[in-house]
């Protein structure tokens, strides 16, 4: 690789970006807009979930717990049940969207400082509402547990122990889509404008061409991540429990992954329109549905789980959540980083193979 040629490509590509208000807007304004829209949209609609209660314990401890639920912004009281069938009926009728079931031995266990378990039945027909209700309930139960010195296990989504797990995942999804969209235009544009013919008559090599083109978009990606993290911390109040360095490192790797996907798409598609549509579909759909951002992947069939493991966004979503909320690197962060790095290498190798610096096949 020749440094001078690499620099020439990088500089030229940077000028293109700076001169094109649309690509700047897409690169920076749209991620901010999406974060605000989805951040508020996805988190504010779970206030006042109607909650019914089946209190089999009937003790001071169980009433404390119920009060914590009904006093929270997330839930409002919607009735009392006295049997299993009543809990099912009240959810079926729609009068309640969740039922808190407190077992008969709850009060005793609390009194003896033993681990106690409560059950939350949730109307799963609105899966987002259900998911967030569970998250909120988990948070309340945990607070309760801390104050009484008792450990309580929440049966669902053990990792999603705060109301703000949505934002780190959202950052991952937005970066995933925007970064790929940005680079998806960069090779197709050269073909479409006819500038490729001049460029391929020069001694420029594939590796200089590809890496040089990545430079300005990488810079935009970094700005996106920084802006998104700042918004997460100060606008949405998401705590950053992990290290900033881990966040930066993981993001640095993932940016390269998703930018590479965009370049590959751009190399394959010779029109900008096709390239941008294609990159949107292949990053947004799997990123949104299969990454674990909206739907818990553990509940999916085996084949689908295998597919989710092949999607880079899956790892970034999980890494960001881990770093933001758990404050740890997770169980095997090096494995996740290794996958992202390997994936990037494969994508870049495929791009090198697909990219033809001649007119054959045109």
């Amino acid at each position, binding site marked *: 690789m020749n440094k001078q040629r690499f620099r020439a490509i990088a500089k030229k590509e940077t*000028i293109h970006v700076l001169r094109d208000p649309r690509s700047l807007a897409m690169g920076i304004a749209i991620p901010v807009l999406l974060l605000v829209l989805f951040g508020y949209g996805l988190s504010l609609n779970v206030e006042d979930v109607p909650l019914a209660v089946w209190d089999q314990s009937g003790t001071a401890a169980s009433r404390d717990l119920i009060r914590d639920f009904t006093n929270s912004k997330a839930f409002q009281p919607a009735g009392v049940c006295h049997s299993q069938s009543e809990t099912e009926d009240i959810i079926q009728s729609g009068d309640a969207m969740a039922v808190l079931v407190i077992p008969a031995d709850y009060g005793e266990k609390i009194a003896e400082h033993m681990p106690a378990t409560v059950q939350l039945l949730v109307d799963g027909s609105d899966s987002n509402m259900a998911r967030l209700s569970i998250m909120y309930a988990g948070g309340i139960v945990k607070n309760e547990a801390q104050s009484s010195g008792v450990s309580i296990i929440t049966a669902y989504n053990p990792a999603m122990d705060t109301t703000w797990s949505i934002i780190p995942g959202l950052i991952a999804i937005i970066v995933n889509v925007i970064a790929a969209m940005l680079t998806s235009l960069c090779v197709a544009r050269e073909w479409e404008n006819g500038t490729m013919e*001049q460029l*391929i*008559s020069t001694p420029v090599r594939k590796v200089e061409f590809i890496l040089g083109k990545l430079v300005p978009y990488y810079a935009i990606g970094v700005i996106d991540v920084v802006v998104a993290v700042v918004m997460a911390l100060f606008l949405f109040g998401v705590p950053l429990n992990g290290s900033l360095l881990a966040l930066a490192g993981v993001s640095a790797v993932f940016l390269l992954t998703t930018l590479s996907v965009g370049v590959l798409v751009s190399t394959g598609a010779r029109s900008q329109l096709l390239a941008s549509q294609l990159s949107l579909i292949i990053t947004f759909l799997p990123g949104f549905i299969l990454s674990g951002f909206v739907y818990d992947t553990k509940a999916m069939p085996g084949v689908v789980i295998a597919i989710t493991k092949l999607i880079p966004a899956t790892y970034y979503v999980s890494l960001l959540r881990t770093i933001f909320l758990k404050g740890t690197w997770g169980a095997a962060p090096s494995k996740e980083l290794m996958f992202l790095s390997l994936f990037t290498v494969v994508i870049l190798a495929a791009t090198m193979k697909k990219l033809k610096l001649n*007119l054959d096949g045109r």
Partner: protein
Amino acid sequence: MTDNDYAVTLENLTRKFGDFTAVDDVSFSVNRGEIFGFLGANGAGKSTTIRMLCGILKPTSGRGIVGGVDISRTPEKVKSFIGYMSQKFSLYDDLTVEENLNFFAGIYGVKNRKDAVNRAIESAGLAGREKKMTGSLPVGWKQQLSLASAVMHNPDILFLDEPTSGVDPVSRRKFWETIRAKSDDGTTVFVTTHYMTEAEYCDRLSIMRAGKVIALGSPDELKRKNDRDTLEDVFVSLVQQTGDTR
């Protein structure tokens, strides 16, 4: 005689696109330092030939030797000592004159880049327009800029594909002055054109029709051989003689 005695040598060079043979078994040589004109109707195969010689299109069969290098075997080697101006304007419209030149100077690894760019601006007559956006330039200036970019690295061989189409006569004359000067400095110039006045400037000419070269020689030789007074008559008679223009 070795390949090195000629700037460009074509041996049975052929390019097919599916069933269509764009360049059909073409053989000829271009001497070092000459201005070699390439004439032919639209679709005769001139651009395809030039693209193969520039290493950006693979020949289906036959050989092309440019500056002693086989274009099929090491096209990337050819690219370092040739300059190419494609038929369609293909510099960056959203870069300024200076930025375009800077870019190509960087790509070609030109030493003393600043001086080289300034010299290019000067010789292309673009002084005072350095900061102008390329897309806003008139066609004549664009062509001058294209040429300046293509010769940024002082190539041994210059391939120009209809460099003056759509350019006014004054700009065209200025353009040819630049080409002449390059040739005087020892650069081999391989140029396609539709203008017979331009063909007259060439040391030698080849006329192409339906993928084949049907005539080759200096402008005077061609006129004498075909018993015509002007190149235009030579061209028209040759092209009609051998049938339709495809």
